C-alpha cells in the first residue's frame, strides 16, 4: 500500500516538477534574450502614460529631475521654477523606488524636445537585486535559481509563481499599468512629504545584501543607457547623491566603504565614468527619516539645488 502510494505520488508530482525544471532551464539559458531591451520595452510599455502632462508644458528649457523617492520628495519644482523666474521649467519624473530601467523606458516614450538637462539622484541600493522585491515582477527573472530560492524563503513565498507569470507576461498586480494623466500636477511631479515614511531606517548593511543577492547589472546598464539617450538628444546629464541624515552618513562611512567601492566599480564596468556630485544637507531636523526630506527640508534643499544648477 505504501509502495503504491509513494509510486503514485511520485508519478503525480512528476509533471509539475518537470514543468518547473523546463521553465527554470528556459530562464537560465535564455536569460539574455528574456532581459533584452526589446523584451523589457514590452514590459514597461505605456509606463509614460502617467506623464502625458509633460508634453503640455510648452517651454523651451525643460529640466528633468530623475530618481527615486528621495528626489520625488526632496525637490520642489514649483520652488525651483520660482527661483529660476520661469526661465527654466523643472519637471520631476522621480517616483517611489523608481529604478534606472523604468526611468529609461519612460524617457524613451516621452517627447524630449525642449529638454535641456536631466539631473538624476543616485541611491545606490536601488541598484541591488535585493530591491527587486519592489520592482516589476518581470525583473525576478534576473535572479539565478539558487538566489531565487533564497529570495522566496526570505521575502516572498510566491516568487516562483511571479517569475513564471512574468515569463508569460501576466500583468503584475503590484505594478499595474499607468493611468494616463494629462493634467499638469500642482508641483510638476514633486510631492511634499507630510507623513512619516515607514521601514526606511535600515542600517547600510541591511539595505544592500550584496553577499546574498549581488548588484543588479541591468540597473547599471540602463543608467548608462539614460546617459547615452541624453547624449544623442543633446541633453546635459548630471548625477548627484541626494541628501542623507547625519546618522545615515556616519553609518555609511563606517560600514559602507566596501559597498561604495564596489558600486563605483560596477559603474565603471557599465561605462558610466562621470562624477556623482554629493549634494548634502547636514541639518537633521529637515529629514523625515534617514533619507527623505520633510516639507521644510524640501524647500531648503530646492534652493541649494538651484544654486548647484546655476553653477553648472
Amino acid at each position: 500500500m505504501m509502495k503504491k502510494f509513494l509510486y503514485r505520488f511520485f508519478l503525480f508530482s512528476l509533471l509539475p516538477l518537470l514543468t518547473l525544471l523546463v521553465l527554470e532551464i528556459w530562464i537560465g539559458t535564455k536569460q539574455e534574450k528574456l532581459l533584452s531591451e526589446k523584451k523589457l520595452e514590452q514590459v514597461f510599455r505605456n509606463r509614460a502614460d502617467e506623464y502625458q502632462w509633460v508634453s503640455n508644458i510648452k517651454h523651451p528649457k525643460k529640466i528633468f529631475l530623475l530618481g527615486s523617492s528621495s528626489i520625488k520628495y526632496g525637490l520642489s519644482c514649483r520652488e525651483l521654477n520660482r527661483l529660476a523666474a520661469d526661465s527654466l521649467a523643472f519637471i520631476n519624473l522621480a517616483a517611489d523606488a523608481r529604478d534606472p530601467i523604468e526611468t529609461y523606458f519612460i524617457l524613451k516614450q516621452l517627447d524630449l524636445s525642449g529638454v535641456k538637462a536631466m539631473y538624476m539622484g543616485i541611491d545606490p541600493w536601488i541598484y541591488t537585486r535585493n530591491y527587486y522585491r519592489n520592482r516589476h515582477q518581470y525583473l525576478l527573472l534576473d535572479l539565478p535559481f539558487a538566489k531565487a530560492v533564497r529570495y522566496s524563503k526570505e521575502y516572498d513565498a510566491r516568487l516562483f509563481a511571479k517569475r513564471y507569470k512574468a515569463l508569460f507576461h501576466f500583468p503584475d498586480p503590484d505594478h499595474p499599468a499607468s493611468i494616463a494623466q494629462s493634467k499638469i500636477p500642482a508641483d510638476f511631479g514633486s510631492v511634499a512629504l507630510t507623513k512619516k515614511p515607514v521601514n526606511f531606517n535600515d542600517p547600510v548593511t541591511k539595505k544592500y545584501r550584496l553577499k546574498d543577492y549581488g548588484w543588479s547589472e541591468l540597473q547599471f546598464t540602463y543608467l548608462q543607457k539614460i546617459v547615452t539617450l541624453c547624449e544623442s538628444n543633446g541633453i546635459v546629464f548630471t548625477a548627484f547623491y541626494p541628501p542623507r541624515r547625519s546618522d545615515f552618513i556616519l553609518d555609511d562611512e563606517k560600514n559602507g566603504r566596501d559597498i561604495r567601492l564596489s558600486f563605483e566599480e560596477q559603474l565603471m564596468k557599465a561605462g558610466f565614468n562621470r562624477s556623482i556630485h554629493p549634494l548634502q544637507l547636514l541639518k537633521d531636523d529637515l529629514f523625515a527619516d534617514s533619507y527623505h526630506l520633510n516639507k521644510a527640508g524640501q524647500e531648503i534643499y530646492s534652493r541649494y539645488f538651484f544654486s548647484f544648477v546655476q553653477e553648472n
Partner: protein
Amino acid sequence: MLFNSLDFAIFLPIVFILYWFVTQKNLRVQNGLIVVASFVFYGWWDWRFLSLLLFSSMVDYVAGLAMMKEQRQRRRKWYLILSIVSNLGLLGFFKYYNFFLESFTAAFSFFGMPIHAGTLYIILPVGISFYTFQSLSYGIDVYRRKLEPTRDPIAFLAFVSFFPQLVAGPIERATHLLPQFQKARVFDYSKAVDGLKQILWGLFKKMVIADNCGQFADLIFSQSESYHGSTLLLGAFFFAMQIYGDFSGYSDMAVGLSRLFGFDLMQNFSFPYFSRSIAEFWRRWHISLSTWFRDYLYIPLGGNKKGKAKTIRNTFITFLVSGLWHGAHLKYLAWGGLHALYMLPHLIKTKTAKRESAIAPGKFLPGWKEGFSILLTFILVLLAWIFFRANSLAQADQIFSEIFSRSMLTIPQVLPRKILVLLAFFLLFEWRGRNSLYAIEKTGSQWPIWTRWLFYYFILLLIFLEGGREQPFIYFQF
C-alpha cells in the same frame, strides 16, 4: 512553520519517511518522533514558547495522574483547579493582561479616580488558546471520570503538541485523539490519498480564496471612511470569505495531514455559510470550539435545563466568553454578543425546533424557503463579521451607519472581477459538496484516474497562479 511554506514542504516528507519507515515498529519511538517534529514545527516561530507548551502539558499530565490515584472528591477537585488555574493563568497573562489592565484604568478614570498602571509588552505565543483548551479538556474529562488518564508522558505530549493541529486546531478532545496515540497506526492508502486531497483543497481555500479576498477586505476596512455602504458591505463579504477560507482551509490541511499519519481529527467546519439558522451556523462553524464551550461552559452553567431565563443567560455568557476567546478587545465581545442576540428568537420559541439535516438533499438548488433561510442567516453572519474585522467599535459603528444609508444603493467602488470569478468557482464546488466532509471529497471518485489528476492539476495551477499576496493565518493570533 506555515503549512504553505517551503520550510514545511521540506519538513513534511522528512517526518513522513521517518514516521512510516524508521520508527513504525515501536509505538513509543513513533510518538517520540511526533513530539520532536511538533516541537521543531512550533519552535520554528519562537523556541522560547516551547516552555509554555511543555509546562501546560506537564501540569495536566501530573494533575491527571494525581486525580486517578486520589479517591477523595475534594482533593480531586483541587487537582482540577490546579489544571484550570495553570492553563487559564497562562492564557490570561499572555492574552488578556493588558486588556484587563487597560479596561480597569479606563473604568476608574470614568468614575473620576484616575490610576496609572503600566502595561507590559507581551508577545502572544502562537496557538496558545488552542493547546491550552485541548490540554484543559483532558483535565476536566479525567476529573469527570470520562477518561482514564494516560501514564505515558510521550503519548500525552504527542496528543497536546500534535503538529497538524497544534496552532489553529481543531481543538481535539482527549477522549477522541489520545487513544489514537496509544495504539499502533497502520498506513491506509485510501485515507492517505483522501488526506492529500483535503490538503489540496485547504491550500486552495487559503491561498486563492482567503489571501485574495484578504487583500480587498484590508483595502476596504483600512479606508472605510472613503467608501460607500455598498462597497463596505462588499468588504464585509470579502472578509467573510477570507476568514472562512483561511480558517477552514487550515483545518482541512490539519485534518488531511493527520490522515497521512494515520490519525482521524474531528471535522471543524461543515459548510457553515449554507446554514439555515444561526443555531445551525454554530453547529457548522468552528465545531471543535463550539462543542468545547457547550460541554465545558454552557452545560456546566445549567445549559437549557433550568428554564428559559437561565437558558438565555447561559447562552449570552457562552457567546461573550467565546468572543473574548478570540481576542482581548471589546469588538470581539460585541461580535459574540450579537450572535447571542441572534439566538434569542430560537431560545424564546416554545416549540423545540427540529434539528436541520442535510442541506437541499438530492437537489441542485434549495427550495424557496430553504434558500431564503440560507440567505438571511448569511446576511446576519456577515453583519456580525463587521464587528470582528473592524479595528474598533467606533469603526464598526461608522461602517454600519454607512451600510444602513442611501449609499448602500450605489455600485461598489471596488469590484475586482477576477476575485469574484474565483469566488463563484469556489462556492459552486462548496455547494456541490455541501453534504460531504469537505467540498471535493467525492469529486472525481467515479472518473478515470487521468481525468481526476487533471482536475487536481487544475487546482494546483490555480493555487500557483492565482494565489494572492501571502497573508498570515488569521486564527494564529488567537
